[in-house]
């Protein structure tokens, strides 16, 4: 019935057709010294900006505590098929990281406004996130990347199974995030 109505160009039955069946956003309080840079409201705004492509099949976005098993590194997010995106809490800036950050990661961080100070003698890196830059990073880099994983997984149809090599999956997610960033930037400029 609904399919027929849409095909005939009639107005949709639901009033919020532009933003149908939004995923659940579950927020777990962060630990002391950590925070969730992007809140529920910002995440929903980002989903709204991307459109129904991102939302279709997406079940939940969870803001959770960082896994303790990866204390040595900083975990940003995770996509778990079918339709579950996890965004981890982040330490309060500035970050003092052991070792030097790889060039590709460095470019990714600097693109969203992070200030990186490399300390080759000490073998450490200081990452500072002025103002809203960490939020921007979590939304435009991490969330879009995870949505890219979801889009590939969802639209291939075989949702709970591995449908591409990890390398290809990651490449698609990176391309998707890049395209969406460009589109959002263009929208901002037009406004």
């Amino acid at each position, binding site marked *: 019935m609904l399919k027929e109505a849409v095909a005939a160009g009639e107005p949709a039955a639901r009033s919020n057709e532009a933003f149908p069946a939004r995923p659940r956003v579950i927020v777990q309080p962060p630990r002391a010294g950590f925070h969730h840079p992007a809140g529920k409201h910002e995440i929903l705004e980002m989903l709204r900006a991307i459109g129904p492509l991102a939302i279709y099949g997406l079940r939940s976005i969870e803001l959770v505590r960082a896994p303790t098993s990866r204390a040595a*590194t900083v975990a*940003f997010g995770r996509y778990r098929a079918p339709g579950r995106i996890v965004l981890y809490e982040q330490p309060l800036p500035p970050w003092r*990281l052991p*070792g030097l950050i790889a060039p*590709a990661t460095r470019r990714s961080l600097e693109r969203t406004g992070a200030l990186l100070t490399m300390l080759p003698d000490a073998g450490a890196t200081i990452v500072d996130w002025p103002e809203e830059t960490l939020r921007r990073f979590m939304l435009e880099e991490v969330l879009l990347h995870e949505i890219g994983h979801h889009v590939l997984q969802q639209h291939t149809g075989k949702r709970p199974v591995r*449908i591409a090599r990890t390398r290809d*999956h990651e490449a698609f997610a990176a391309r998707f995030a890049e395209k969406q960033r460009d589109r959002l930037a263009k929208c901002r400029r037009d406004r």
Partner: protein
Amino acid sequence: MNSNVTLVGDSIENPANAVIMVHAAAMFGAACRFRDTKGLADAEAFAGSGLATITSAEVQALHSRIIACDNLPGAKEVYGFNPGRDFALLVGNERRGLSHEFTTLATDRVQIPMHSRRINCLNVSAASAVALYYLCGSRTGPMAIRNDPGSRRPDILLCEPSDHFELGSTIRSAAGLGWKRAFIEDRHQVWFGCGRAVRSEGRAAARRGKNEILLIPCPPQATYAYPRVTVITRQKIGVPLDRINLAGGPGQLVVIPDESRGDFALAGAARLGRKVEVAHLQLPAAEYTYHYRLMATVALAEASRQVGRRPAVKAPPAMRPPIYDDALKQLAKVAGETVPLEDLLNY
């Protein structure tokens, strides 16, 4: 009579079943009462003696432990179940099983494990006898667990049955307890070569429409060469039933004679095989009314317990869904510098 045990029939329809349930209870020294919702008290069978009835409130007042015997969810195997000395055993209607009222009344649930895909229950009186045998008669262990129970299942010979209803119920029990074939020495022609009415009634009792057991007629007094023959009799000879090995595989023939017309002549058992053993059912009551289906079903249940079942198959773990992590890439390694301990202390 063991006044601490009561067999309770819930909405039993068939008066013949009710009468045999009374006899089954008497075999184990238990009382037998009925919750009569089907007009059982008006049946001819109870015209003289009267039907002992009971309500759910009376069951609760009489016994603290109430055991439902039905293939209900979460029911434990009757084998090896320890009910204590004071309990009520509830058995249900022939077609519908226990009523919701009695099911909710129960403190424990037991079942007789069935091995057939098509025969999923026993005759109610036969089931009552099996349950009473394991709950208040013998103290046996749980059902054996074997990788290949089929290789331990003996052949059975139903010897000289004299009543088609009794034989039909026994055949139903044999199929339900996992036998694919049974030999019948039909001297009294109650199964093969009988009249139409007897044939129909016998087949109905055996649930022949869905009972796939293969029945092989054996001529009376024929000789066989089984390495091991086990005769299960009502006579107090031989070893108790639970102490004899009934899981000898196809090389063993378990003979269950109908002794309603007289004791089985054990001397004649030598024609069946080389080594003949005798086992008997240990029953608390000295005097009881003999029913072939009761004795045979208890014997078959014990054999089935010893033959055992396959171990429960573990469900394979579900395939892990794909997970993609996003984390800070591996930090570039920096060549380390060796620092003497003195320098570090002076730092």
